């Protein structure tokens, strides 16, 4: 029995196992609390809500792994959405064609990457702290977006975009498929590529990484560029989900993405953390939120419960290591 547990633990990691246990407890608790919880409809809505937060969390994950933080993610995503919206408007708004959409997506990705690139360059070559740089970028991008839109919404997009936010393929929501694809790419990037390896090393010890011959500055620049690119994907999905773009959409997600990373066992100082546990952490957050919603609580109580849940998990982890279960 213990042998079997060890083998599973070594296969998927203790972190994943622990979080799956939490997930089972949460699902079981809500299933007992309300009959509407364990239904296809509920899990369908979870599957549609998860990707926005999920994509932003992936954008946050890589900077945290490298020992930094990217506080500009939500506004970068808004700004990329704005870029796509603007190109669609120029090409006729509701009547815009597929070509305009593809052009807009390309432009959105380019803008996201450019925003990340600037942050990466400042962090890598000036040596300023990522929190300060990304905070300044957040204030700037938000201001620029508000200046251009005057704080208003942009809507009126061609109907063929809607499936990206609301459609399904083989019973799976398209946004979820986009998220899973992005998570898979992130997994491969972090576990199977030289850049991913450098990211972890950088988070563990920047100086040692530099002395071992890794171009740390180029790596840091690439980390933030990729983070910006993922923000652009999130921005495009958010545009399709809400069918409109406004600077400030999803700004409440900013600190939730950090929360999800920490819940998924990512080391706040960087160097340790994996995609799979973070994805499970996201699922737990979303299940908590929808479960509370079904028993009649509002989004604010969910926010509070997310915070309390993170504290509870950290306290349990502390106890786990303190009393020697970790090894």
């Amino acid at each position, binding site marked *: 029995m213990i042998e079997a547990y060890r083998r599973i633990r070594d296969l998927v990691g203790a972190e994943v196992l622990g979080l799956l246990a939490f997930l089972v407890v949460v699902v079981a608790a809500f299933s007992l609390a309300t009959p509407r919880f364990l239904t296809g409809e509920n899990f369908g809505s979870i599957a549609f809500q998860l990707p926005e937060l999920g994509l932003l969390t992936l954008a946050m994950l890589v900077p945290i792994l490298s020992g930094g933080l990217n506080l500009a993610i939500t506004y970068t995503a808004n700004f990329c959405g704005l870029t796509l919206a603007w190109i669609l408007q120029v090409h006729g708004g509701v009547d815009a064609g597929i070509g305009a959409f593809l052009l807009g997506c390309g432009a959105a990705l380019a803008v996201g990457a450019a925003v990340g690139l600037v942050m990466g360059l*400042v962090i890598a070559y000036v*040596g300023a702290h990522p929190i300060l740089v990304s905070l300044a970028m957040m204030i700037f991008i938000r201001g620029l977006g508000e200046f251009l839109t*005057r704080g208003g919404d942009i809507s009126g997009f061609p109907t063929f975009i809607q499936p990206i936010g609301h459609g399904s393929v083989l019973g799976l929501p398209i946004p979820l498929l986009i998220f899973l694809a992005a998570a898979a790419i992130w997994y491969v990037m972090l576990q199977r590529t030289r850049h991913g390896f450098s990211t972890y090393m950088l988070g563990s010890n920047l100086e040692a990484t530099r002395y071992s011959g890794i171009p740390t500055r180029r790596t840091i620049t690439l980390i933030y560029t990729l983070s910006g690119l993922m923000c652009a994907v999130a921005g495009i999905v958010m545009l399709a989900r809400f069918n409109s773009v406004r600077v400030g959409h999803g700004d409440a997600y900013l600190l939730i993405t950090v929360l999800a990373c920490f819940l998924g066992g990512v080391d*706040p100082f960087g160097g340790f953390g994996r995609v799979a546990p973070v994805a499970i952490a996201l699922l737990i957050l979303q299940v908590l939120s929808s479960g509370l919603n079904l028993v009649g609580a509002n989004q604010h109580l969910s926010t509070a419960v997310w915070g309390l849940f*993170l504290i509870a998990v950290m*306290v349990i982890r502390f106890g786990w290591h303190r009393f020697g279960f970790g090894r």
Partner: protein
Amino acid sequence: MPRLLASTEGRLAIVLVVVCALLSVASDQFLTFANFSNLLAASAVNLIFAVGLVVVLIAGGIDISFAVAASVVQYLTVFALQAVGGGNWAFGFLFAGVIGIGLGAINAALIYYFRIISIVVTIATFNAFFGLLMFFTGGKYIYDLPDWWTHRIVFFEMKTPSGWAELTLPGVVMIVAALATWLLINRTTTGRQLYAYGDNPEGARREGISVGAMTFIAFCWMGLMAGIAGLMQVNFVKEVVPSALLGRELDVLAAVVLGGARLGGGRGSVLGCVLGVLLVAIIQNGLNLLGVSPYAFKMVIGAFILFAISTSNISFRKLFGTAGNGRRA
């Protein structure tokens, strides 16, 4: 001059003087007592937050939850004052201070007893405080406040050609808070210990500095300042709104770090806080006087901070080498 340039505070002071000089040429309303008294009043709440936050940063921590904590303090203080039948300023400061310290102690207890990193704890408490506040208050505003609380108290006023220049209660409290923080971190043993602990926690622990005491002092001081800032914000805007201070935490953090506090501990000063907060406030005030669209304010401030970071570190890093990159948060 080289000594002035060697410190972040010195460089920031020079930038501030240059910005002020440019603005006083560009707008004849800028360099007046009336405008400066407005600036002080508008920066009071942020500066009280800032001097609290700098103590936490010096001790090597970070706090994301303080602005939301201040909103919680406002609501709880309203209820506490109702319980004592209205109260007065003494009760107001007492309740706001004690509740603020209590919320800070929650953060400190989680950090110290369960060895959780401060950014994890305060992001969790940020969500918990705000979520619970919105849940229990239902997002309702409170306008029915005791008269003494919303009444303007003017300590000093002077008629100038450009309007009344005055020093009101938030301004005075701001000065007292800044002086008290300065005394704490520069003139007491505890202050030296906070710097030592932030610079090298393990080294400080081996010297016999109590880790628990440092954590509690830093976060309770932050809590106290958050409580007082919440009290002053109500005096300034004359209403209690649950989401009024949401988002303020990142603005204040940017100003304090701009003022030379190091994320990772061991560095930071009250003067830096004052300069950082004032610089952001003055740019905003200047843009306003120049007739720039308010939608562009944030853009300019963000660009300015980015520019300031990019230029401030380059030459000095290269001159003196990269000693400790301060990546710990």
